[in-house]
């Protein structure tokens, strides 16, 4: 039995530029059955060199643990303004996080990547559990992660 967490992200920092060229993107992140406490996830954008560009979503409410989302923590420098309003509950083993957000067109097919960092209490931290280029071709194609992420898909 799967439960879906549906989160609708409204136009945020990355997204606000021009009303005309925004696109609705749906992200699906399904976790493996790693048998542990709820996982913390950071979903964020980088350029083709892996340089942090902006936060899409943070799953997990206790900012004390954000440092374990190592790639994201390093890029965002964990500044509150980077994730303000973009946080939700942590995701339990085996479940799926589904969220929708509006994303500026200029990020698509322009060499940008989506990264997912994951961390679970008393278990390893996974920097870049998932790395996937954000392209029109990649939409709808499932990618598997190397840590707690079983599969990751984006659609628009």
């Amino acid at each position, binding site marked *: 039995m799967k439960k879906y967490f549906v989160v609708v992200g409204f136009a945020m920092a990355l997204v606000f530029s021009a009303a005309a060229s925004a696109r609705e993107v749906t992200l699906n992140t399904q976790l493996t059955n790693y048998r542990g406490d709820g996982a913390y996830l950071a979903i964020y954008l980088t350029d083709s060199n892996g340089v942090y560009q902006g936060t899409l979503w943070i799953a997990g409410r206790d900012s004390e643990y954000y*440092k374990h989302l190592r790639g994201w923590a390093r890029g965002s*420098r964990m500044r509150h303004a980077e994730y303000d309003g973009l946080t939700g509950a942590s995701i339990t083993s085996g479940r799926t996080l589904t969220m929708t957000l509006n994303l500026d067109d200029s990020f698509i097919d322009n060499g940008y990547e989506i990264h997912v960092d994951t961390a679970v209490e008393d278990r*390893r931290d996974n*920097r870049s559990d998932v790395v996937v280029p954000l392209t029109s071709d990649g939409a709808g194609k499932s990618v598997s992660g190397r840590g707690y992420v079983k599969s990751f898909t984006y659609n628009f």
Partner: protein
Amino acid sequence: MWRKLHFYPGLLAAPFLIVLAITGTILAVSPVLERSSAVVPADGQISVAQLAQSVVKQYPGAEQIKRTPSGAVIVYYTREGKPGADLVNPETSETIGLYEPSAFFRWVKDLHRSFLLDDAGRLFAGVLAAMMVLMCISGAFMLARRAGGWLPLLRGFRGSGDGRIHSELARFALIGLLLSALTGSYMSATRFGLLPEPADSEPPFPMEVSGGEPAPVGSLEALKSTDFHSLRELVFPYPGDPRDVFSLSTRQGAGFIDQATGQFVEYKSASTGNQVVEWIMRLHTGEGLWWLALLLGLAALTVPVLSITGIRVWWSRRASGDVPDNVSPADADTVILIGSEGNSTRGFARDLQAQLSRAGRCVHSADMNELAEAYPKASLLFVLTSTYGDGAAPASANRFMERLAHFSCSGNLKFAVLGFGDRQFPRFCQFAKDVDVALACHGLDRLQSPALVDQKSPDQFSQWGGRIAEVTGLNLRLSHNPAPPPLLDLELVDRADFGVEVEAPTSILRFRPRAGKKSLAQRFGKKSDPLLDFHAGDLIGICPPEDNKPRYYSLASSSDDGLLEICVRRLPGGKCSGFLHTLQPGARIQGFIQPNPEFRPAPGSQPVILIGAGAGIGPLAGFIRKNDARHPMYLYWGGRDPQSDFLYRPELGCYLRDQRLTGLRTAFSRTRESAYVQDKLNEDAPNVRQMIEMGAQVLVCGGSGMATEVRAVINDILKPLKTDIESLKKDGRYLEDVY
């Protein structure tokens, strides 16, 4: 007040506290297990650089090395695109096994900290921890009051049943429970922002790195200078990212290390605040402190027992009719002070309090040991007290006389003393008489001269109430009738007769108790019949035919011996002893047990000196028989003629051989030596003195004549130690069972 603070939160929280305690105990096992499987190299033997170098050799895809507080080393790695975690030997970096955190422990941990309910549950667990702090503190005050001060608390308690179990367990577990509860409360309070948390111990990520060619991990200076024992965690740079750094976290601080230069780019030492918080966490979890974890786990294990006995004690207090509303000493216009050994005086005091309250008085009732420094509003003071042994104060009054010296009485305080006792004893109600004199000397006015109640007579009690009603004008109808003790059917199994030739006919009588009908409580799980629960030193009350006045005999056996044994000397004209001496095996009589927990050897390994004469050997022989722990026990006993009245002769020989009895000194008065037991004590004076100095306890059983002689000798022996029997008695180290 303490009692209410202790009980009501306890009752509410008990089921949840039991969950916290049991899960806590299970979690305490985890540091012990981890420690037992960890390989711990010596201090200064391995640096983090060496460790990392050899780990990388074994695990080319190593991402993170973690050292748990108990010393286990975990390596997180990726091999062929698959993540893994292994426990490794820090000395060789060889794999010990897969690291897989136990799902069971994780579940127990979640149950412990949040009842599996996330934040709401965590908040609740925090509230419970705070309640536990309250219970510990209120409980500590109650324990101290019960023991008669903080210092005596260290010596433990006498008494029996649930109350004793509760107090003794609490005494041992208190510190551990308080530590767990306080640290737990603190952790919860910081989590929910009630207490400030020290700032994060990690520095911000570095903005700039050298970006040079990564050097081999074993050559990095910052890692070379860090000992394995201070390591917490080392995170490797993301492969192929020259701008990434090593993240190192140690006991002293945390920082980031340049891949190329091997120097810290950022470093921050742990603040005192961080270290304090970390210690609080460790004191709670026992992580890395396996012995503490074990102690805390054991302490937590007492919680279910404490909950159950606590509720039972409360229930039995309630069932026996709890004290009616007790007014504080400052507000009371009437004060009742109770001196009681076995609690029977309390029943009378309760009745008096209820009647006085009904008559409109504001009554404060307390033990005599709780005498306040003043009762500013009081005009009436009633003292109800029994007498212990040969004129001594009972347990709840043994510090009354000292406290009286600090008592200041208001002008119009009038007092009346009511003594309880048994006219069979020579110094009948002596303590009540002493108290009466002491109060008068202290300047209080007598409402009435002391009245004495013989054998708990309800008639005499209500007559006294009538006289008090007359002089005070209050409407009192005292009618307390102590419930008659349940009778036990006894069948004589055998008897051994001694001393007929020396005019001291004494018999050891052994009865088989026959249980009556089983009560409902016993049918449902209660193992032992409380009627049949007795110890050597307890008393059995027996009424001779056509006489309702019970005579008491000390028991020489305990219930687990199976038989009830007494040692009875036939007194000339003695109605009950004469009757008992006519019994032949198979005969049946009835009796009732009166617990006498005060007259028992104290637990512990201190030497015990038993002194007795004639039939007084009964309970002493019973104590020796029970000395399975082989603590040093010495018996001084006096008889008349070894050929005739040497009671327990074969048994004592047997006890000497198997070392339940360490030494035996006998004195016989009708031999050429013509010695008494006190003479033997005198001969052994240096030994006796030394043992008492070492903390020995003295128990005396026998006739009052002998007891007086023994007291004189022992006081002489004690003189060089600058102490006397009175102070030994206060410590429970000189006990008498005298008739």
